[in-house]
């Protein structure tokens, strides 16, 4: 799948693994959840209103377009949450 974000710099950081819909995804220490998702695809979440995928918008914690769910039930804002090794993100619609 085509990716949305392009890494241009800062690629010497240590590697971690984050699971996206169950599939392991390479990520770097200091990546936000949104960066992890958008360096592997073009979707952060699925709109609850039936208009398909969303991928965030303001990236500064203002628009609230990038809230994602983890498999452990937590809801986190993608652009302001730093990814941790082993985190498991769901991009589909989950129960609120």
């Amino acid at each position, binding site marked *: 799948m*085509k990716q*949305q*974000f*392009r*890494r*241009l*710099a*800062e*690629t*010497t*950081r*240590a590697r971690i693994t984050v699971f996206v819909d169950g599939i392991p995804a390479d990520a*770097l*220490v*200091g*990546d*936000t959840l949104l*960066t992890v998702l*958008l*360096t592997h695809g*073009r*979707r*952060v979440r699925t*709109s609850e*209103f*039936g*208009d*398909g*995928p*969303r*991928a*965030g*918008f*303001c*990236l*500064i*914690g*203002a*628009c*609230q*377009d990038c*809230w994602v769910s983890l498999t452990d039930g*937590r*809801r986190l804002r993608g*652009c*302001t*949450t*730093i990814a941790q090794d082993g985190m498991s993100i769901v991009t589909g619609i989950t129960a609120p």
Partner: protein
Amino acid sequence: MTAPRVVVVGAGPAGIRAALTLLRAGLRPVIIDEASRAGGQIYRRPPPAAGFVRPPGTLYGFEAGKAMRLHAAFDAALPRLDYRPRTLVWDIVDGAVHTAGEDGGTDLVAYDALILAPGAMDRVIPLPGWTLPGVFTLGGAQVALKYQGCAVGERTLFVGTGPLLYLAAHQYLRAEAGVVGVLDTAPAAALARVIPGLLADPLTLAKGLHLVLSLRLRGIRVENGVHPLRVVGDGAVGGLQYRGTDGQEREIACDAVAIGYGLKPETQLMDLAGCRFRYDSVVRHWLPEADPDGRATGVPGLYLAGDGAGIAGADAAELSGERAAWSLLRDHGLADSPSRRRQHIARRLARLGRFRQALEQTFPFPAHLAESLPDDTILCRCEMVPVGTLRAAVRALGGDDLNHLKASSRVGMGRCQGRVCGPAAAEIAAASGKRPIEAVSRLRGQPPVKPLPTRYFVGPTE
């Protein structure tokens, strides 16, 4: 006499300068900020302790010196500040701020004086297709680069108006990201008329001209006077269609669109603190009222600084942050600014204010874009409310205030509280009700000012 308890909200240029000024007078302010490191959006630093290595010159360009000075001054003062990063102020009630930390901790911090420096965000105007993955704000495109070392696309198109349009495109070029073009809604002719005003800050004018020139020298397509029509693509951004000054419709292929029409102040906390607001018809914003020294009108103990009190840029934010702190110190009989310093700040802010006025004329907010949107365009991206629903509410309710229209149409009711759609919603409501924009008022901030997971308010389940 016990020292007043002071809370500063926001650790951008304004909040940092305010806190440092208070510190020099012997106070130990609490400084609360949502980010993980101080600097604000413009001087935002990559995440801490993660191995990011780009030097300030790469991150901040021309502004690297200012960024480094501000960061260094703040970092040196850290042991003497009560600094609470990654913390949201979500309500202000009876002389105390309610906070929620990213780690789940909540607190209630009482204050005798409060300085609000919450900053700004991009002002956007919806267009068909703007909820497709790959459409980001101009500020967002910058943050992806500065904070994460990423471009928002392989071929990014920059659309909108204002200095940030050119700055963001320039930063992408410098980072060797793909830039397919810059589409400015402002007419080219505007520039010559406003040069005298822009000369109020000749250095910034020179930097701005350098940005535009360097884009053109690199062969980047730069078009003025455009009317963006729609973002197109199959499940994600594939291009943008627009109308040029010749009236012809064209399409530019791209995989990311960075869009914005200047900045808008984040005023939700001023609302909760009880500020009065006035409409500024030049910038087309509602601004919290304050006296010339940053004291909020009618709210004793409240001081306003930075872009959250009115967009003026980072240099002005540092000055207005310092000024708000001096006013606070004076009001508590603790210290007074040296009169030379006070005059310097006032003079410099006046010049920057003239520059800002000229910028507004150079890059006018294209309200007509909002007014002319088709009924089926999504206006509220939180809840997928189309423009037509707001227009129908205006017809049903007659002329009415946006808060009433919100209750009836759900525009502005979503998770962002209308931060994103608010300015366009006001223009659409005013135009379809054939009323002056001031008459439709503005969406009021509500607590919590941002969504808070309920885990903040319930105990552990084990």
